[in-house]
């Protein structure tokens, strides 16, 4: 898609990833998973054919929320938890912009939980990337709403006593129309998913498992290390059977309503018994969302759910257009002089 720039000229400039790197020094800890996420975003933007000045990155507070500073685009480093609200203002004031939200597990799900679920419900055109490191990085190591039960952290020396959220499940519960999960250490898959998220109409939500090597190192190691990944990660692909394992020997079968893991290479079951993923099925999405909490089950990575639903900003625009059509473009004098008026004449 070609775009016109501010002067009405057709924008044909082709960008490279570098064009999206700002002049600011990146200030994350060496080794932080945030670097990879930044790199993948910069890499996919050229593929979007959206002129640089139409990208806006909005964030809250947290390590992850420093993201906008590193992008050569427009950006607001907001306040803790409020990025979805600020971004909703940007997007509905100017639907022409591509609006991204960079947020953390604390920023999005703890203090920002309300704006998060309401953005999803409204299906407003925000691309929400939630860097889930299951910890508060910036404030140096308190547990977050995604930390596992019993986790010892700075604020819970004897272990947490609150159950974590499952962000995918919560997003589905809140009417999300594009819900995905990625890994900081699977750059290709992250890129593909980012691209799909960017092109989705309405809110897209990507939970990105992100390693905080200072306060929660190795939280996702089993999903990223070569030897453990195949048995612990289940890639979701629309229209493909749910297979995993080193040789794709394991599959998910639905026993009436209960999912079970079967081996497709031992004779009893074949690939035909395996559940074929359908990312437009809400019920399947929820079922798969619970996998990460089921003992013995692999953690799904990929797009859980993806359906088309008219976006908030689209309906806002249409409503303004339709009312304007019906009533005519508003005339200020008419408005001021509407209602019961009377004239006092000079006498």
């Amino acid at each position, binding site marked *: 898609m070609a775009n016109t720039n501010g002067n009405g000229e057709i924008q044909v400039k082709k960008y490279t990833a570098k064009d999206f790197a700002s002049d600011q020094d990146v200030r994350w800890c060496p080794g932080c998973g945030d670097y990879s996420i930044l790199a993948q975003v910069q890499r996919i933007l050229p593929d979007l054919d959206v002129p640089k*000045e139409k990208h806006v990155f909005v964030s809250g507070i947290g390590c992850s929320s420093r993201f906008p500073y590193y992008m050569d685009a427009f950006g607001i480093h907001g306040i803790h938890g409020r990025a979805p609200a600020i971004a909703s203002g*940007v997007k509905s*004031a100017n639907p022409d912009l591509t609006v991204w939200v960079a947020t953390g597990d604390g920023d999005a799900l703890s203090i920002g939980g309300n704006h998060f679920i309401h953005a999803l419900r409204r299906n407003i055109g925000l691309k929400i990337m939630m860097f889930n490191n299951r910890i508060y990085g910036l404030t140096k190591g308190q547990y977050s709403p995604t930390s596992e039960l019993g986790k010892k952290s700075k604020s819970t020396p004897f272990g947490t006593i609150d159950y974590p959220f499952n962000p995918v499940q919560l997003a589905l519960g809140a009417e999300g129309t594009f819900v995905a999960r990625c890994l900081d250490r699977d750059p290709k898959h992250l890129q593909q998913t980012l691209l799909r998220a960017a092109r989705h109409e309405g809110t897209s939500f990507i939970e990105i498992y992100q390693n905080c090597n200072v306060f929660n190192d190795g939280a996702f190691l089993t999903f990223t290390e070569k030897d453990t990944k195949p048995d612990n990660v289940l890639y979701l692909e629309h229209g493909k059977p749910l297979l995993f394992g080193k040789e794709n020997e394991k599959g998910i079968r639905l026993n009436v309503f209960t999912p079970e893991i079967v081996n497709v290479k031992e004779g009893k079951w074949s690939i035909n018994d395996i559940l074929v993923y359908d990312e437009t099925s809400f019920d399947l999405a929820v079922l798969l969302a619970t996998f990460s909490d089921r003992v013995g089950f692999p953690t799904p990575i990929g797009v859980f759910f993806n359906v088309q639903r008219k976006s908030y900003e689209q309906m806002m625009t249409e409503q303004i257009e339709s009312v*304007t059509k019906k009533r005519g473009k508003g005339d200020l004098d008419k408005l*001021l002089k509407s209602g019961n008026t009377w004239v006092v004449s000079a006498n």
Partner: protein
Amino acid sequence: MSKTIETLDDVVIRFAGDSGDGMQLTGTQFTNTTALVGNDLSTLPDYPAEIRAPAGTLFGVSSFQLHFSSWDILTPGDHPDVLVAMNPAALKVHLKDLKKGGLIVANIDSFDDKNLSLAGFTANPLKDESLENYQLIEVPITKLTLAALQGVGLTQKEMVRCKNFFALGLMYWLYSRPLEPTEEWIKGKFGNEPKVAEANDKALKSGYYYGENTEAFASQYQVKPAQLKPGLYRNVTGNEATALGVVAAAHKAGIPLFYASYPITPASEILHNLSGYKNYGVRTFQAEDEIAAAGVAVGAAYAGNLAVTGTSGPGAALKSETISLAIMLELPLVIVDVQRGGPSTGLPTKTEQSDLMFVTYGRHGEAPAVVIAAATPADCFSMAFEAARIAVKYMTPVYLLTDGYLGNGSEPWLVPNSKDLPEIPVHYRTDPENFNPYSRNENNSRPWALPGTPGLEHRIGGLEKANITGDVSYDPENHDFMVKLRAEKVAGIAKDIPLQEVYGEQSGDLLVLSWGGTFGAVRSTVDRIRKKGHKVSHAHLRYLNPFPRNLGDVLKNFKTIFVPEINLGQLAKLLKSEYLVPVVQFNKVRGLPLRSAELEQAIMDTLGGAK
């Protein structure tokens, strides 16, 4: 039967009944008709925090007071001349305010044992001497309404619901008002329900004819049109005027209006009004809460809209952190606080002036914001417009304070022509050459650089900004510089606002200094005192931060400064710390406008002391 028609200068009438009795509607109809007749007027609706409490209870009473006159009036009046009491509870609650010798029109049909006991009467006040000092007119309003509506084809319950129109018709007769405006309104409103339309119309006329045909009233009255400035008028409430003010400002600025809000009494009507202006390009966003509303507004401001977020006290408290962000981002933003009784949920449907310190100082850090306040319902238009002008010119959040009385109350408004409104120049930055997000113009304002503008890509945020570049800066000296710069920018706006005017002598013994919604009560009281020959001047502040630049001089010209407020002395505090002058305070925090009589007494007492 023909009756004498007496001419009166002004009348204060109060309609009172159950929340379900339609008193607000009755009052509004009377108001509109009265406006069309050409009287000046001022209104005071008063309704309970409950939606529609059980019939007959004291806390379920809803009222609407209206002051209309043949001269320029400023307040809805302290004490009604007439009380229309639709039930015993209404009588109980409002009798104490009625002028001695005033008229009571009571719907006797509702004075049954149950209602009397719900209202806490041990005996029927219509039957004993309790109303001796008043003129009591007993009207079987319910029965008469029912009788009039036989055959219209409504249920009993539906017919009873029309009784407020009967009362309205009766009052129209009493004060010689035409029926046509209300007849028109009924047609428009109930177009789809012809039976209801017919019933209300009939009830209205029956009331009118009841006045004309019975001996109940000794005479009829008229109030001649007021000598208002010539021009086109309409009646507006403060909330309507606020909505129109920001629409007008956006229009004159040539940019879209964006209103983000979360419903809250008494500010919700601003949202209701603006949400109807879709064809004016107005975007309204009902957010999940006030924090979100403020955040959405900040985002819309960043994207180049005239962003406004309205609320009342509790909501303003929630927005505080986000306004602090807007101050660091230096984005234009108008925050309307329609003040109500606090603290906490307080008296949610009542008026108060107790958020002044809060909007001035209620943010962490050194976070200066502009504060201005409307004086009358119609003035909400001008001040909303002014708030927008200052916000976009200085790239700063501006608080507009109104209050429950202004928001719900109404008065005739001389409607301006759009071409006579001042322009609001807006220059979005477009030139990438030498662009620096925190460079400054002569007003200390930074450029408004919209996302979507090629070459202006930049990032802003809540961390301290380096001067000019706007980069994040932890440099101690830069912080000191920026903190002082932000303070200076706001203080500097003093040179761009009108000098403080003084009504009456420009120097003397006593200056009454007020702000916000008390204007009418204070000015009329000062007027009355002046008419009695006393030298008392009045200054009414509409700019609270910064103060008008001559305010210090104004204060120096008077021996005593008298500051009446519906709070515990918040303006008094600001004046004392700014000008180190002692002030005499007058503080009544009753959730109601100040009462003229009390105020007069207090001013006279002070005047005695001042001499």
